[in-house]
Structure formats: C-alpha cells, structure tokens
C-alpha cells in the first residue's frame, strides 16, 4: 500500500502545475482571439475597399474577377476628382494652420494668464466640440449671408477652423497644465524675453501636443461634410465629390480613391509617430 501511495503523491504536484499552465495558455489564446476579432471588425472594410480597387469587374461581388490598375488610371484622368482632392488639401491645410495660430495662443492665455471671465471663456471655447457640424454650418452660413460674404473655400476654412479650435485648445491646454510654471519663470529669470521663452522653452515642451492636435485637425477637416456642405460655394472638396458620385452608384474608382486615402493616412500616421517620438537624448 505504501508502495503505491508514494508515487501517486509525487505525481500529483507536477500534474497540477501543468493544468495551471495549460489554463494560462488557453487564457492567453482567448485574448489573442478577442484582439484579433476586434481588429478584423475594424479593418475588414478597409481591406475589402483596397482589394476591390484592383478588381477588373465593376460589380462588387465575390470572387474578384482579376487584377487591374485601370481604376487608378481613370482616376488620374478625372479632372473633377483631382480638383476636389486639391481643394480638400487646401482647406485642410489652411484650416489646420489657422486653428493652430488661434488655438495655441488661446491655450496659453487660459493656462498662464488671469483675466476676468476666464472660467466662462474656457468653457465657451470648448463648447463647439459638442455642437453638431450641422449647427455650426447653418449658423455660420447665416452669419456670412448677414455680412454679405460670398461662399467659397475660404468660408469653409473659417468654418472648419472654428469647429476645430476646441480640439487644439483642449489638447494644448492639457499639455500646458502639466508643464511647471517655474520653467517660464526660470527662463525669464535668466534674461529671456517673452518671445524667447515661448520659442525656446514653452513650444519645445508642448511640441508633441501641437503636432498631434494639428494632425487630428487636418484629418477631421479633410473628411468633413456637414460644415462644408453649408459653407462651400461652387467648389467641391473630396468627401463632397465622393458623396455626390455615390448617388450614381458605387464605382471601383471610388474604391481607388479610398485606397489612396488609406495609403496617405498610413503615411501621415508614420510621420506623426516619428515627429512625436521623444528624442532619447538631447544633443549638446
């Protein structure tokens, strides 16, 4: 009896250990599966879009009939579409620059200055982020009509910049709050003027927040429809153009545009990651 009992007790401990390890491994694979599902859910539509942009057939049906670059060639010959892309770039870049030029100083004022009504200013400046684009669009349209402003891409830029201001102010303000005021004081103490302090001390320390807010603003402006819809004159931006052609049905050409935008977005993300990467070690 003792002969059989002894080995069995010896064996149970490792057996228990392997079952624990097994459970851990299963747990890990379950999480990998969940993560995979989430990613599939997020990216399958994009993969489909890109895949069909190379499909020879016009119809969006599986399986694909063959590979071609025809749609990209057609796209390159489509003047309307190219103008729309140019317009979109013009609007997005201008709106981003404009909103940064207003938003960064506004965030600085919120963080560094004391003035009457600051609390209200802070809340009101952030309000447009919660406002639907349609409201911003209509209200600005009414305003431009009132003061006799003709609608154009420039009015779109103003509209976008207004809506995006909240994004920039929030992000930059959040960063500024984490920056000790003693840095400003030390800079002034060491003889720097206000401008020198801003460019040599403040800006380098909020740089990543400014870049991040800029890229987000650019993206939001680039695919914006509601505000653009109300404020544009004769000119079309890319999302407006795509939307208008969609009424005539989905075309692989649109898929090709989409694929190009995806490529450009990936590029933009890479650039932003590179720019925002903290330098491991400052140079002397």
């Amino acid at each position, binding site marked *: 009896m003792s002969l059989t009992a002894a080995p069995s007790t010896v064996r149970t401990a490792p057996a228990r250990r392997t079952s624990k390890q097994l459970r851990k491994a299963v747990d890990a694979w379950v999480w990998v599966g969940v993560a995979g599902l989430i990613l599939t859910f997020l990216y399958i539509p994009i993969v489909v879009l890109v895949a069909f942009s190379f499909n020879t057939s016009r119809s969006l049906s599986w399986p694909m009939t063959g590979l071609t670059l025809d749609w990209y060639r057609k796209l390159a010959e489509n003047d309307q579409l190219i103008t729309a892309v140019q317009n979109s770039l013009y609007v997005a870049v201008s709106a981003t620059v404009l909103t940064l030029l207003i938003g960064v100083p506004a965030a600085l004022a919120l963080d560094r200055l004391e003035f009457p009504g600051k609390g209200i200013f802070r809340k009101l400046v952030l309000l447009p982020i919660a406002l639907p684009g349609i409201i911003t669009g209509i209200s600005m349209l009414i305003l431009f009509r009132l003061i006799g402003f003709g609608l154009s891409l420039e009015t779109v830029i103003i509209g976008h910049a207004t809506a995006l201001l909240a994004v920039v102010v929030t992000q930059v303000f959040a960063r500024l709050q984490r920056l000790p005021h003693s840095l400003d*004081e030390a800079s002034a103490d060491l*003889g720097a003027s206000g401008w020198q302090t801003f460019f040599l001390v403040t800006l380098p320390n909020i740089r990543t927040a400014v870049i991040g807010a800029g890229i987000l603003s650019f993206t939001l402006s680039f695919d914006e429809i509601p505000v653009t819809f109300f404020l544009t004159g004769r000119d079309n931006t890319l999302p407006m153009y795509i939307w208008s052609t969609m009424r005539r049905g989905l075309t692989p050409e649109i898929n090709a545009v989409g694929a190009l935008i995806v490529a450009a977005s990936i590029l933009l993300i890479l650039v932003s990651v590179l720019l925002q990467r903290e330098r491991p070690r400052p*140079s002397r």
Partner: protein
Amino acid sequence: MTNIIRLDGLSKHFGSVIGVDDVSLSVRKGEFLTLLGPSGCGKSTLLRMIGGFEEPTAGQIWLDGEDVTDLPPNRRAVNMLFQDYALFPHMSVGKNVGYGLKVAGTPKREVETRVLEVLDLVGLADKAGAAPHQLSGGQQQRVALARAIVRQPKVLLLDEPLSALDANLREAMQVELRHLHQKVGLTFIMVTHDQTEALTMSDRVIVMRAGRIVQDGAPQSLYDLPGSPYIADFIGTTNLFASRIENGRIACHGQPLTIDPQSILPGARTFGFRPEKARLLRGDANGSNLLRGKVAEVFYHGSVARIIVDLGAGQVLVDLQITDAAAGLPQLGDAVAVEIAAHKIMGFAAEDAA
C-alpha cells in the same frame, strides 16, 4: 561695506490677505542672508518680489543703487535657484547652463567655455551632455545652481534650495553652498523654514512672522539673544514660562529661581532657558537655583539625551551630555534636580504666547 539691495517699505497684499507687510531691509554685498520663518510668513513672497515674479503692492526695491521695482525678471541682474530646480527638460545640462548666456547673445565659443567653467565649479564638468532626468536630485540641483550663477548675477536668490533633498545629501549641500558662496563671492539670499539650515549657512538671519521682520541678526546672536519668546522657541528649543519678578526672583511652575537683574528688564513677564544650558543633578543635590522634580521621559540621541522633568505644576526639558556611557541614563520616576545659572535665564516683555 556697500549695500547691494535695499528694500523700502515693501508690502504685498493678495486681495485682503497681507503677504508681506511694510518690510525694509538692506543687504550688504557678498553677504549670505537667510529669510527664516514658518510657511506663510511671507519669506518666499519677499524673495519673489526681489526676483521680479511678484509685483509689490507698495514700496521700492533698489538693486545696486537702481530702482528695479517695476522691472520684469529678465531685466534684473539677479538670478534664482528654484525650489523644483526648473531645469528645462528638453535641453542637455550644458544647454541648460548656457541658456542665460545664449539669450543674452553671447558668442557661442564664449558660452561653451563659461558653461564648462561653471560646471567644473559645481563638479559636473563631465555631465554637460546628459539630460537633466538622467541625473540624481543632488546633481540636478547643482546644475540649477550652475545655471543661476553663470551670468554672475549681483544677487543669487535661493528658494528653499535644500527642501527636496534627503537628509544626508542636504547636509552635504549645506556645506557645498557655503563653500560656493565663499568661492564666487556673490550675495546670496536664501529662504528656508529650517532653522538649523539658517544657522549653519548664513552670515545673517532675518526671522519673519506674519509678513513682518521680527528679528535680524547673526546666527549666534539670534540663538543667544532671541528678541521674543517666539524666536526663542522657533530657533532651537526653549523652556518658556510666565512669571512676575518679585525681589529679584521668579517662579518656574511654582518653584523659585533667582535671576540676573543685569540681563533682564524689570518689566519682563515671560522667561525661559535652553535645555542644554541647564544641568541635571541627582534629587538629593544641594545648590542654588534648583528645580526639583521627577523624570517623566527620556529621549536618547546618542551623544545627548533630552530629559523631560515633571516639576509637579509643569514640565521642563533638560539636555544631558553623555560623556560616559557607563554612568547610565536616569530612569523614569527618578527624583532629580535641574540647575540653571541665573545669567542663563532669558526674560521677555509680555507677548502673545507663540
């Protein structure tokens, strides 16, 4: 000696709160002056007004004969060592130290040599290329110090410079700051709430309370001749008690003590003596000026033991120098006598108990 700084009736009000109240003060060139007081006494506000970071409500600040009251910080020839060091995180140590020279338009070559000189002075010449976050707290402080003296300011302001360091590093930095002061010959104005720091490092200490200067003097005079019970207890420890003088004698918690009429004003109402100036004797000892009581508590500090003696009506502290460990410490409940020489008793005019 010439005065490098003169404050004339300087006040600072924050709304209805009075931070600094009509302070006038002169600082001599090359002096190491310390503003000492509990938090909220106005010492930091005073320092920040000298640096230009707070605007005085009233009064003037004269720096080396020039009225700088309305000048912004960047146009005053004073530099500040910030409590949190305020090193620029995106710049190397060398760039941090050279910043003040760079913004002043100093030629690059000269900036480099002066940065190395001053880094050498604080013992960090090999760290010029490092980022501030790679350094220890003590090293960061020395970088901040180097950055503050590289422009050779007329006055260096130090805002609680040692408060962020741990105990043994703090002691080492006390010594280093003093040596640096002697080496560079600049005027130092330091703010601290730590009386030991103030006594150890400075030539002169200004004790502040509720926005006002309550005493101004060399560390030793401050300790030996405190002007009020408040200072007597704030700087070091003092056994304080209230009494009236009758026939050259006072009562300490009911027990008579003789005082020295030469050192005490006749109107004195509060009296005190320092624990280390009294002597602890055995209970059956004879002598004059003895307070008799029982040992209530013993705090052993190694070279000295602080004994709380219960006199019945109150308690006093006495320091016992331990020169011979074999003699042993008094035990709780032992009958003891506290001897205090008449001339070591301090007397103060009546003042609100601090």
